[in-house]
């Protein structure tokens, strides 16, 4: 199986970032078509496509779209999540830098379907290069009448604003992102069922549709070709295509768009094969459990990966070869979550710091055997006990690494140095 390009179909066309070339390749025809349909028909088309949120959770997109109230008693908002922060992921960066109009078209259609007059793209502060491309594209779309008042004479208004972040992983979480847009510290809010969903009470307590860049970029193709066409790709429950950002020990790192359900090993081949001997794969960004090489015989879709004990996540596909010391790698993971924990919930704020301290003790050669169970205990104390999923995400990779690589932890604690580095040393002698 080779790549199957839906989002990346025209990405190699020179000048696709400009409105002129995008229109030559069928750009904004989906918007024209959508404006000729009723709002419910647009939502039904997304429902028929089976599109699931590409930001990490895999929540069916149409449920969010359909959950927005159908009356205009309050203003509605569209919030595009372009705060790509999940370590290992760089698909949104490429989608924005190389295909900005596809995303803008998707956002306008989402705005039409959900009766919104305003949309925000929340781009992380570090992404100034994609933000400048988006800025140029939005200005072009305004000039051509695809944005602003009375879009293409249909009587529909939609304004799109860029909101830049300022350096916070946490702001990629939808409720923290709402806080950040409203000018607050990027901390999460109480979730459903303890509080209404953002589709009822989101930005400024108004109905808000929050979707990832990749999800919204799928929309023009779905409207143009129909939901059934999109659903014909992939597996029954995971339809369509998915972009995987392959990085780490592979020969050709980069973004690869493949059909859902593609075998994992084929994606590795697409990326030019592994440098050295494959040790493990992290298939969905740093937050998902690690998958050891022996278990890599799985298909890449939401259900298969879940059955294999990991998750599809955001598609940040990190490949590790046998030179990587799992203990050291997991210490870096734990340090990341400790740095990025927003500090709102005690289990996450304190637990992540304690984990780093225990890892540091092990790495310094002063580890104790009971430290492994202590780490597992802290994972249990964090998992499910915080407002947002950052806490869970801090616990899952550590727990999975102990499950699969307990012997490496034990070796490190017993000998005071890494098992992998010792192997490399003996090989050199």
């Amino acid at each position, binding site marked *: 199986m080779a790549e199957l390009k839906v989002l990346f179909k025209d990405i190699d066309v020179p000048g696709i970032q400009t409105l002129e070339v995008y229109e030559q390749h069928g750009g904004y025809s989906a918007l024209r078509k959508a404006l000729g349909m009723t709002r419910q028909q647009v939502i039904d088309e997304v429902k028929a496509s089976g599109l699931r949120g590409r930001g990490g959770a895999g929540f069916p997109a149409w449920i969010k779209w359909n959950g927005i109230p159908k009356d205009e008693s309050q*203003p509605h908002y569209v919030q595009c999540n372009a705060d*790509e*922060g*999940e*370590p*290992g*992921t*760089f698909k*949104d*960066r490429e989608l924005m830098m190389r295909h900005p109009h596809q995303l803008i078209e998707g956002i306008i259609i989402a705005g039409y379907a959900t009766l919104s007059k305003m949309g925000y793209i929340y*781009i*992380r*502060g*570090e992404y*100034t*290069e994609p*933000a*400048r491309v*988006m*800025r140029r594209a939005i*200005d072009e779309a*305004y*000039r051509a009448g695809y944005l602003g008042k009375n879009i293409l004479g249909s009587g529909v208004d939609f304004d799109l*604003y*860029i*909101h*830049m*972040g*300022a350096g*916070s*992983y946490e702001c990629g979480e939808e409720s923290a992102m709402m806080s*950040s*847009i*409203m*000018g*607050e*510290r*990027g901390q999460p809010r109480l979730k459903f069922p303890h509080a209404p969903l953002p589709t009822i009470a989101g930005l400024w307590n108004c109905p808000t549709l929050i979707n990832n860049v990749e999800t919204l970029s799928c929309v023009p193709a779905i409207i143009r070709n129909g939901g059934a066409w999109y659903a014909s790709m992939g597996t029954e429950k995971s339809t369509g295509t998915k972009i995987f*950002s392959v*990085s*780490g*020990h592979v020969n050709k*790192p*980069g*973004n690869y768009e493949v059909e859902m359900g593609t075998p994992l090993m084929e994606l590795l081949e697409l990326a030019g094969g592994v440098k050295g001997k494959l040790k493990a794969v*992290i298939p969905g960004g*740093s937050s998902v459990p690690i998958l050891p090489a022996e278990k890599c015989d799985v298909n890449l879709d939401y259900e298969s990966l879940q059955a294999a004990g990991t998750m599809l996540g955001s598609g*940040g596909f*990190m490949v*590790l070869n046998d*030179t*990587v010391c799992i203990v050291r*790698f997991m210490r*870096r*993971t734990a*340090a990341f979550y400790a*740095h990025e924990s*927003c500090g709102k919930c005690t289990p996450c704020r304190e637990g992540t*710091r304690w984990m*780093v301290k225990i890892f540091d003790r092990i790495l310094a050669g002063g580890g104790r055997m009971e430290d492994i169970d202590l780490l597992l205990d802290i994972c249990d104390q964090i998992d499910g006990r915080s407002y947002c999923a950052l806490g869970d995400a801090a616990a899952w990779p550590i727990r999975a690494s102990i499950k699969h690589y307990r012997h490496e932890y034990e070796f490190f604690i017993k000998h005071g140095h890494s098992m992998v580095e010792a192997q490399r040393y003996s090989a050199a002698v």
Partner: protein
Amino acid sequence: MSERIQLGEYPRVRRIDEKHPPELRFSQKAVEELERIKQHYPTKRAAMLPALWIAQREYGGYLPPEALMEVAYRLGTSYAVVQGVATFYTMYNKRPVGRVMLEVCTNLTCSICGGYEILRYLEQKLGIKVGETTPDGQFTLMEVECLNDCGNAPVMQVGNRYFGNLTPEKIDALIEQLKQSDEHTVVQLADTIVQCHLSESERQDIERALEKAQSAREAEQDGRDG
């Protein structure tokens, strides 16, 4: 984790309002920009992040307490609220930094692809530790979390650009280039971000407003001279 939040010196002003304005240092351009950005949101408070970016540019690359005070005044909120927001986000500099910031990613992919080696090399080359600024005030070296360009690991952010697939040779050339150019500075990064918020028509509006103010000033000057 390693970074302790530095609260800075709390300014000895009880309240900030129309009757007690702080010292204001925003240029007219900045004021015009902030006015336009405020229109993007239903509340003034929501313009906080862009306002802090403007302040970071106007105050030369970092946010001293006076800058937070000015933002609080212009958004009609308290110093504490602004300080709370500014200290949450890592890209707002709470302390003075060098002219150019070198931010090396050492997160997962970069850590296994040589990010730490690049960081050590830069430390050695510049003669400073992570978090420090060179004595000539040119460079500040920072270690950052994932920049999400893992396909080009190891990656470094310099102002408004990423540099990937780094090697010691590339870094040598880059440092020489950065010393001589005005590109990718801390101030320029803040300006790029501010400009991304503003649409084409807003940018033209601002230009017109500034021209008008300029010609009004000139007319006044002529009147005085004549």
